[in-house]
């Protein structure tokens, strides 16, 4: 199995990382990680790439988009080179091989998230499209199911820590329908503030992040689901930052819909997933119209295909879906429990290590409990763009700077931007040491 190592092994640094460590660099306790990062890194060709000027790459931007293992790259190349045909409609060998591979990817994704039925897995182009698909199901006169009726007086609940993809579609929905948008606030520690009175009997849907892409906070889904159920509201989770990093089982989560995106989970861009309860998906109106989503078409009306195809109009991202299937195989090979444990150990290490940097303020939970491996911070008097630029240009350290598509959250904390390091299965403690050294240097430049 890729990336698994025997008992007792510890998170060792890849060789090049080790040799770059400064003599006398502080030694920090390294938590146990079940992942052999050295082996995992060999699967990701780009990680051994040299940047201009001979800098090694230190990739700490997986929350933005992850890198891809050759297993995914090769699967996609192989499919394009030897099998490719359109899916669902071709009566020839290539078309049926493509259809088989495309539908096999759906099976893999369904199993990966514990979906009760493969038909509940809808391929979209990304998480944003999956969120929009659900938002567009509400207040649509073409659907008469009362759960999706929406108008003045009805309410939608989100939170202040959402990515713009889980804010804007709902704002657009209330503009179309006259419904009201409400939200949970965020505490100073970066936790969801589940205040009373936000969810009411007028709430039709609650849509929140499973894990914040800025704070790293993992939200208490069970509590939110319980509140929503009491009010008779549906629940959607933006799982873009959780499915890649934790074992996720939709049956256990208890939500009605989850959205996630392939490019953040070692898969390609151009493919995302909406999972929804079958019975709800059947009650929803179609989203986009076109080929493959129909049953029969007359000049004045149409009937629609059963789910999932009802929501997959036109030629889908075929090779991307197959690539996502390969990504799921890869992650299963390493084991999602192992990925989670590795990130937990790295997070503990990083939180400790970043304390060493004077005036660094973590925006989000300060301890590794109830959070993922996304670390956003500010440095007093130094703008994140300057931090990111110097880290990249001098040390080859790739972080993300800005508001990370969560502007309201930054407004909440009274800051225009943060620097964000987001870690994944291939990151090492040596890379965190490199980040800390880089930040010390940044401070020297602006001293």
């Amino acid at each position, binding site marked *: 199995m890729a990336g698994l190592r025997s008992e007792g092994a510890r998170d060792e640094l890849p060789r090049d990382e080790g040799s770059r460590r400064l003599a006398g660099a502080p030694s920090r306790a390294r938590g146990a990680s079940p992942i052999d990062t050295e082996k995992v890194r060999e699967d990701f060709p780009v990680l051994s790439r040299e940047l201009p000027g001979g800098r090694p790459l230190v990739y700490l931007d997986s929350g933005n988009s992850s890198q891809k293992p050759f297993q995914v790259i090769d699967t996609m190349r192989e499919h394009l080179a030897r099998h490719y045909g359109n899916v669902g409609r071709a009566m020839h060998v290539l078309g049926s091989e493509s259809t088989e591979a495309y539908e096999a990817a759906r099976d893999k994704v369904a199993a990966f998230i514990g979906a009760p039925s493969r038909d509940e897995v809808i391929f979209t182009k990304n998480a944003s499209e999956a969120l929009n698909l659900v938002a567009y199901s509400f207040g649509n006169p073409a659907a008469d199911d009362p759960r999706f009726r929406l108008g003045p007086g009805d309410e939608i609940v989100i939170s202040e820590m959402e990515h713009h993809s889980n804010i804007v579609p709902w704002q657009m929905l209330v503009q179309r329908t006259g419904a009201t948008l409400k939200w949970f606030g965020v505490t100073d520690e970066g936790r969801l503030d589940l205040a009373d009175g936000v969810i009411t009997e007028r709430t039709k849907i609650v849509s929140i992040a499973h894990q914040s892409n800025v704070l790293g906070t993992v939200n208490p889904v069970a509590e939110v689901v319980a509140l929503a159920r009491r009010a008779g509201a549906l629940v959607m989770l933006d799982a873009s930052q959780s499915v890649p990093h934790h074992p996720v089982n939709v049956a256990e989560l208890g939500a009605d819909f989850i959205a996630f995106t392939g490019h953040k989970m070692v898969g390609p861009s151009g493919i995302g997933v909406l999972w929804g309860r079958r019975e709800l998906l059947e009650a929803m109106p179609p989203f986009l119209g076109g080929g493959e989503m129909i049953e029969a078409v007359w000049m004045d009306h149409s009937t629609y295909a059963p789910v999932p195809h009802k929501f997959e109009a036109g030629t889908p991202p075929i090779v991307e879906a197959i690539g996502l299937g390969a990504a799921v195989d890869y992650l299963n090979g390493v084991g999602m429990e192992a990925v989670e444990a590795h990130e937990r150990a790295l997070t503990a290490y990083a939180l400790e290590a970043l304390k060493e940097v004077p005036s660094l303020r973590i925006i989000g939970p300060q301890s590794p409990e109830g959070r993922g491996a996304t670390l956003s911070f500010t440095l007093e008097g130094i703008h994140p763009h300057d931090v990111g630029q110097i880290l990249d240009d001098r040390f080859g350290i790739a972080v993300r700077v800005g508001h990370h598509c969560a502007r309201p959250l930054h407004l909440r904390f009274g800051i*225009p931007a943060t620097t964000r390091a987001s870690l994944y299965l291939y990151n090492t403690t040596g890379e965190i040491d490199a980040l800390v050294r880089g930040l010390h240097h940044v401070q020297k430049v*602006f001293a």
Partner: protein
Amino acid sequence: MITDSMYQELILEHYKHPQGKGLREPYDAEVHHVNPTCGDEITLRVKVGEGGKVEDVSYEGQGCSISQAAASVLHELATGSTVEETLAVVEEFTRLMQGRGQVQPNEDVLGDAVAFAGVAKFPARVKCALLSWMAYKDAVVRSVGA
């Protein structure tokens, strides 16, 4: 390293000790410009006096060292010159910034602003350098038109 040529001493000095920062009265025009990709923003006021002389450029804003230093340098260069002279500097500065590092800057026209030459090699940062200068151009047009 390339950033060494971007973070010139002069830029860092202006960032740490911005010249002319703060909004002042009187003024003829006030503009607010934002860089939506990074959230940098600036509010800028211009006061033009007798004979088209720029009497004051005052500003308030937030952003990275490049955008803040560029506003500070702009204040120094513009205050006391004529509108016409300053627009020539703005034009030369814009040409330099948009030149992808291939343009030879005219130091006689640019003065201290030549320190930003290294920024031109970073397309993502060119907008930071230009933010206050574009705001100034906008404000001047409005104040002269008024």
